[in-house]
């Protein structure tokens, strides 16, 4: 048994799935790009963010939406593997059991990263500019990877527990909506109090704010620590539950 080798063999398998069902990439990449076009060229003129470059303002939220819709495919792929008895087959073989789950997690990280690179490319064409240093960029990438990890482990739970395909992917709808009720598209200070309190205290706002200020100013202030705490906290809790369900279900 060699867990790392087995994880990579299984990663290769899932990546083949993705290459053979291009709708995975299309949904995860095109939808956020469409949002970006819509907000920049249709609503953008009417939104006052206090910055001159709305693409810069918008991009962090768009990236998070892409990840939120991307992880629903992890739940979907895991659900199919459970239902078809493929997980049972792997678990009755002399291979490391956690390799099976980790391969799904890595698949999510790799495919989401590809989507993000494409989206950032389109944003550059639309006028996104950043003067951030390499170090700030590394912090942004780290933040995005952590966010992916957190949502992916969250997605593992419905993937293992869902009773139907619809159930497996439906959990991501609220995740996709979260950025809309945050500082991702408009500043929170124009929102009614109740909405504002929610928006300012949910994870997406702190994550968006910290990525935005890293890209704009090269440093993120206190937001980044709250954002990190959210991501790490969600990862730990989701990981704990996912592993527990996996041990019982598999």
């Amino acid at each position, binding site marked *: *048994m*060699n867990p790392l080798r*087995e994880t990579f*063999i*299984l990663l290769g*398998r899932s990546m*083949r*799935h993705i290459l*053979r*069902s291009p709708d995975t990439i299309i949904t995860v990449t095109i939808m956020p790009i469409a949002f970006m076009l819509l907000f920049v060229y249709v609503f953008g003129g009417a939104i006052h963010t206090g910055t001159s470059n709305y693409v810069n303002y918008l991009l962090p939220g768009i990236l998070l939406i892409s990840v939120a819709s991307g992880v629903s495919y992890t739940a979907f792929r895991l659900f199919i593997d459970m239902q*078809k*008895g*493929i997980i*049972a*087959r*792997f*678990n*009755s*073989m*002399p*291979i490391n059991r956690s390799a099976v789950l980790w391969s799904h997690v890595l698949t999510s990280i790799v495919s989401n990263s590809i989507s993000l690179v494409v989206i950032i490319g389109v944003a550059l064409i639309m006028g996104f500019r950043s003067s951030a240093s390499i170090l700030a960029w590394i912090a942004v990438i780290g933040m995005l990877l952590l966010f992916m990890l957190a949502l992916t482990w969250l997605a593992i739970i419905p993937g293992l527990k869902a009773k139907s395909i619809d159930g497996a992917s439906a959990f991501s709808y609220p995740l996709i909506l979260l950025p809309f009720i945050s500082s991702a598209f408009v500043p929170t200070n124009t929102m009614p109090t109740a909405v504002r309190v929610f928006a300012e205290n949910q994870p997406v706002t702190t994550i968006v704010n910290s990525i935005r200020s890293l890209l704009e100013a090269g440093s993120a202030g206190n937001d980044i620590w709250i954002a990190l705490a959210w991501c790490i906290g969600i990862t730990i809790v989701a990981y704990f539950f996912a592993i527990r369900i996996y041990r019982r279900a*598999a």
Partner: protein
Amino acid sequence: MTKDIVQVRNLRKSFKDTKVLQGVNFEIRQGEIFTLLGQNGAGKTTVIQILSTLLKADSGRVIISGYDVNNQPGKVRASISLTGQFAAVDDMLTGRENLELIAKLRADVSPKQTANGLLKRFGLEEAANRLVSTYSGGMKRRLDISMSLIGKPTVIFLDEPTTGLDPEARLEVWKTIKELANNGTTILLTTQYLEEAEHLANKIAILHTGKIIANGTLDDLKKLIPPVKKEYVEKQPTLEEIFFAITGKKETN
């Protein structure tokens, strides 16, 4: 020389308030086709899941190839293969890729050669490079069983291998199972079809209300009922005979 390759002692398992297994005992000798016969919900799949280390029993002991499923599940997994109730094949890969995947995971030294050999042996060469989603039910099952042979397991568990297959595909699978046994593989088969047990098994165990209520060869089991009374009746063809007569396929033994 024959020895018990599988030993099951006093196996018990409950799900909440339902007692599924209430003291199951049996053993399987090397090279045997052992059939576990039972109705839907009799607990056949539960037995298979415990034997293949997917589920823990409440009590009892299972030894496979000399290893305890509780204490040395890794060793057990290395000597078994599971073919579950539904063909556990990857629809999004080709037949060849499915075989190579399992071969790589089992650390086979030449996955390509292994895959080629099995494709040939199971008559899947022509379909080898097609996505499995285009395969018929019988072909999926054959691929499924061929995947179970990788790594040369001592025992193969086949959980209702012909459920949901059309009669023709069922004959295909029967032929495959017989060939495996002829090559010395030990097989534990579950089925709800009496005919299947009669056709394939060296040993038949009937699982009913959580216990093995009968266990032996077909001849042993026949002795359990009163001797046959001779009567002359006009024999009506079975639907299966009619089906094969019109579709032009012959039952091959």
